[in-house]
């Protein structure tokens, strides 16, 4: 095989497969928007999760996961180089394009999976295992794809033999990784106690307080109504929060909400659930509790919030807040809307009594 063929073949394939290397080359394509975003974010990948891009895809992981990224790239490069070095190109009419489509698609999708694993998971054992497993699978896939274009000297060439071995190893590694992931998830669920019930729905999480939003609570209440269980519902409202927001900044207001949310969660039992209702209003669901005990927890939360010496950025001196709380017991099959209306009413009544 001539040197020319080698170089041409390499460039041709690299364009499709080695997209991670390609990122660095595309900055000249700056008219094309997504690519510009790509190269720009690569350049500023120092900050872990910059506040300005919370909703967009973030590429800062490349620096964070640099070792793994390099490892994946190196393994892939070695595979490609050894394939091109040892192989001969097939004539164009001998290529089965249907196979190319199928195997190329698999290769590409495996690459995308690796990308998302690296982008979304923190560093650690599970991530390493998942990435390595997928990389082995990727190597098998790309060899499979390459032999649509390339033939090797004889039928027993070592690259043919190698084709299916990495995939198996990769699958075993991933299976082990998934088991580890399961263990990890059990621990994480423990951490999320009181912030999450049995259903996970990330689109319903409120960004400010990291609690679930009112929609999530409504769904939980409807589930409870369907199963005809009893529950007790509390609503908390920070007094004069609007005034605080006016006096200080929105950022301070958000931070106060976050800290109040933490206090509420800290004071709950493991089986309870806290959500942000709206603005400065929080809603808490108690499962299987007597009204008296629920009342006790509500009072504890109110006392705890009253003792929070919150220090706004501007002044740095402590601001104290009082809260009003409402508490009701559900009667069987009350709808979520009814329950929430009742607890809101109770809150308004108790506030009126307190103010007078």
């Amino acid at each position, binding site marked *: 095989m001539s040197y020319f063929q080698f170089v041409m073949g390499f460039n041709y394939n690299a364009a499709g497969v080695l997209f991670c290397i390609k990122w660095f080359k595309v900055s000249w394509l700056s008219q094309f928007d997504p690519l510009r975003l790509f190269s720009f974010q690569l350049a500023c990948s120092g900050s872990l999760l910059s*506040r*300005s*891009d*919370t*909703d967009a895809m973030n590429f800062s992981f490349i620096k964070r996961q640099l070792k793994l990224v390099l490892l994946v790239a190196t393994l892939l490069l070695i595979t490609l180089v050894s394939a091109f070095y040892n192989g001969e190109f097939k004539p164009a009419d001998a290529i089965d394009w249907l196979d190319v489509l199928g195997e190329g698609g698999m290769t590409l999708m495996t690459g995308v999976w690796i990308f998302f694993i690296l982008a979304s998971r923190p560093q650690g054992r599970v991530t390493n295992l998942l990435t390595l497993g997928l990389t082995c699978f990727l190597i098998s896939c790309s060899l499979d794809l390459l032999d649509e274009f390339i033939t090797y000297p004889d039928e027993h060439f070592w690259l043919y033999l190698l084709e299916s071995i990495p995939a198996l190893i990769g699958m075993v590694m991933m299976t082990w990784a998934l088991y580890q992931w399961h263990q990890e998830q059990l621990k994480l669920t423990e951490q999320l106690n009181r912030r999450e019930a049995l259903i996970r729905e990330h689109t319903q999480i*409120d*960004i400010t307080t990291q609690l679930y939003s*009112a*929609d999530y609570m409504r769904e939980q209440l409807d589930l409870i109504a369907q199963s005809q269980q009893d529950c007790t519902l509390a609503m908390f409202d920070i007094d004069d929060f*609007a*005034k605080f*927001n*006016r006096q200080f900044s*929105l*950022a301070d207001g958000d931070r106060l909400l976050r800290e109040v949310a933490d206090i509420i969660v800290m004071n709950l039992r493991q089986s309870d659930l806290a959500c942000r*209702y*709206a*603005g*400065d*209003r929080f809603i808490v669901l108690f499962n299987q509790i007597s009204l008296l005990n629920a009342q006790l927890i509500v009072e504890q939360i109110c006392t705890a919030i009253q003792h929070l010496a919150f220090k706004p950025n501007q002044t740095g001196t402590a601001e104290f807040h009082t809260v009003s709380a409402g508490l009701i017991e559900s009667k069987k099959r009350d709808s979520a809307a009814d329950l*929430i209306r009742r607890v*809101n*009413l109770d809150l*308004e009544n108790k506030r009126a009594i307190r103010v007078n």
Partner: protein
Amino acid sequence: MHAYFTLEDKFIQAQQLAASLIELAASRGVNKDKLLRGTGIFYEDLSSDTLLISADQLLKLISKTRQLMAGNATSFLLGQRLFPSNYGAISEALFYAKNLLDCIHILNSYRCEIAPLLCTNLVWTKHECIIQFKDAIGCDENFQFLLELYCTAIHSSLRYLSNRRVNVAYDFEFSQPRYIQEYEENLGFKINFNRSTNQIRLARQELVALLPNYSQVKRDHALHKLAQQSRYQFGFRERVIQLIANNSQLNQADIAEQLGISNATFKRRLKQHGTRFLALQDEYHRQRVLSIHCDIQRSNEDLASRLGFNDVANFRRAFKRWFGLTPSQFKQKFRHG
């Protein structure tokens, strides 16, 4: 004083609503360049006190904000921080106003500055003061956002100025949204949906108590300053409806003549504001019916004759076109409205 403004007249101070919007979005992590792209507003220009933008630009900015900011709380958050600080002399006049009644009059007279995209209409009944809201210029899908925004702004500023909870009730034309909690949190619990009009209702007796900050001299001084600025009074749509109201026999060409523009320009402008002449005529009749309807229940014959129809059958047909309901269905549905 100018007669009316169109979508493209640059008369809205960017320092007011637009600046608050951009600030809020930025504090919630929205990219400023993305937010302003396509609106024709430049971030560098915003720091100048005198930057003026058009209703069209403001609407584009609102659409962009809604698109880029997650959640349904944006309009309410913005409403809470709009008053009374952002509006210079108007804010001053409000701050030193005599009572809430005075505030409402000030808000209503300067509504083109405060809420250029909405038109308001004050109606007095025996016990209530009612502020009705209409689309002044063609806000379409942003209309509900604007209603939420200004209702919250009015609610929170009345409360701020009087330093107590004010008893306010709300009626909205649209049906109850999923995020009802934001309405309850910001507007209280007296909210009705699926009503014949969008309005705020205040008990008259609550409006006369003296406000804690009242200062006649400072209030008059602020109003005096305001009187010297030239300003618009009506949006294009609103102005056309006014002309129809002055003489409902006028046709399209007559109105164009009264506006001082050619019939072709008039047509183009109507289209630009997302409407047709017939639609505005219907809108005028709708408003007439609602204002007559406000106080007393009337018979169909009586209503027809008051609206200039000789024939009750004709009236019923037109009524169906205005509201999608026959007069009796309408009465039944909105008996308590």
